[in-house]
């Protein structure tokens, strides 16, 4: 395992520069690191710590608070079935039980081939499409039992590669503009 790639290190520097205080970049940088390996490796957390001016333990402690940040490996596709009220009323628990049987794993586990991790999600703000499912934080719904089989089949065969990138939510986020508004005064203050 290694730390952030040179490309990501560079991206990380530009993210840090967007905030009045470095530590604010901690969560965006964790997302960046997670996109690399699918989870936060020790080495990546050390890099994030250095960039944010905190200890690696603080990065780990902070990351552990957040559901999206993983400190253990996950499958290539994290499949999250929402079972909150609107989805439950649309049969989410039947879909989730079916998902467990279909993938041969329980919620929280990863298939042997490393392809799927199954999660039970809280409301994903897609309740009009109940039952709502996210794969690597891309939305699908309404998903019924047959729809679930089709979805995982399409994922496994690579048919959804364009729609569902592997890991990470910032992979396709492109921020090029630096802070511009108060450039002159900035130098004087620091």
């Amino acid at each position, binding site marked *: 395992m290694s730390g952030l790639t040179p490309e990501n290190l560079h991206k990380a520097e530009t993210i840090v520069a*967007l905030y009045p205080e470095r530590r604010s970049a901690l969560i965006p940088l964790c997302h960046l690191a997670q996109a690399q390996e699918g989870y936060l490796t020790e080495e990546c957390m050390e890099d994030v710590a250095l960039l944010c001016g905190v200890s690696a333990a603080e990065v780990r402690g902070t990351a552990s*608070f957040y559901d999206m940040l993983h400190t253990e490996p996950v499958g290539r596709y994290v499949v999250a079935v929402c079972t909150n*009220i609107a989805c439950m009323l649309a049969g989410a628990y039947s879909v989730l039980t079916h998902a467990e049987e279909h993938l041969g794993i329980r919620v929280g586990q990863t298939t042997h081939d490393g392809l799927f991790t199954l999660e039970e999600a809280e409301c994903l703000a897609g*309740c009009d499409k109940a039952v709502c499912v996210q794969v690597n934080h891309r*939305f699908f719904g*309404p998903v019924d039992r047959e729809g679930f089989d089709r979805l995982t089949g399409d994922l496994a065969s690579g048919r959804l590669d364009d729609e569902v990138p592997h890991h990470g939510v910032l992979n396709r986020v*492109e921020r090029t503009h630096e802070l511009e*508004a108060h450039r002159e005064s900035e130098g004087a203050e620091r």
Partner: protein
Amino acid sequence: MITGAKPIVTARMDHEDSYTIERYLATGGYEGLRKALGMTPEAVHEEVNQASLLGRGGAGFPAGRKWSMLRPAPTTYLVVNGDESEPATFKDHLLIERDPHQIVEGSIIAAYAIGARQAFIFCRGEFALGLERLTRAVEDAYEHGALGENIFGSGFGLDLVVHPGAGAYICGEETALIESLEGKRGFPRIKPPYFPAAIGLYGEPTVVNNVETMSNLPWIVLHGGAAFAALGEGSSAGTRLFALSGRVERPGWYELEMSKTTFRDLIYDPSLGGGIRNGNELKAFIPGGVSAPWFFPEHLDMGLDQDAVGKAGSMLGSGSIVVMDDKTCVVRAAWRISRFFHRESCGQCTPCREGAGWVDKVLRRIEDGFGREEDVDLLLDACDNIAPGLSWPPKQTTICVLGPSIPSSIVSAVDRFRDEFLVHVKDGACPFPPDEVRHAG
């Protein structure tokens, strides 16, 4: 009554490319900002006061009044709350993905009015596409001259940063959101100070406003606060974006004139909710997110009005309405909502942390048929320990209002359907069928 009020925040949604700057500019985009920059910040603030725009994040606090509470200081921040995680709420998600420029424009207008040095849009981390589109919109706004050091040649400068969350409901609470934006765990801050307007981000005065609140600003500046206040009635001015879900034929988002439109219109009108699924009967509905006490058929003719709903013992909250029909098991529904609070409690306060665990466990065992008769009163006791007196609005003994929101659904369900709880106990099983799966298409 369904009025002919034109949509304000969803005006562009008919266009496939509503999220692009091209479409935005072709439909009057950034005109509100141009107009605002030709006014004084005080004049912009006054329009918002006139509009009587209530915050759309859940608490319904008047936006103009919040801005007046800012402590004067050299550095002020604007933080836009796009963390939308209240169960059954999906309106900000829509605005973020489908009209990000409107949020950006509204945020710049607000920043100008309050004299913010920098603005942040805190976007829920799970909204991957939303993060892409919001960031793209910010980039395009810089290119267009709407952000940066000298916006449209006005001399006003602002930077805007889209900040991702990482999955924690509690970060929607404004002080937890600020902690999270500072790179920490999302623990709500102890009050007072009651508002980040005194001490907010990095200890500086900060305004936190919801995404939908911001989305209304370009229209308000362009058409004037009075035109906004002319819609709706009394303090419930303007239109509002409602999220309808659960057992209705047509779940979805509907932007409606406040106060004049009723719950019955929203749930039953063929152009809106279209009635209860499969022609079933209405049993109960939640009028404003799962933190709100439930309503029943006798409330259907009430207007979508913040004061009226408040007086009737609930809240319009986050503007999300969940419909339960006669096939719905209310024990299961109350359990699922309680389980959510249990999972999302940040754990700082004992009544919330312990109470949420208790009610989750007790409701689960009743639903599974292992409950005892005493369990029903035990539930109410546990709720009373969380929010003493079980009044509305709840009495708060905790750092934030997540805790006191836990009793809402439980007390509603027990008060109205105690007999159904007892049938679970007597039969040793849930008398309702499993929830029917809704099929695609």
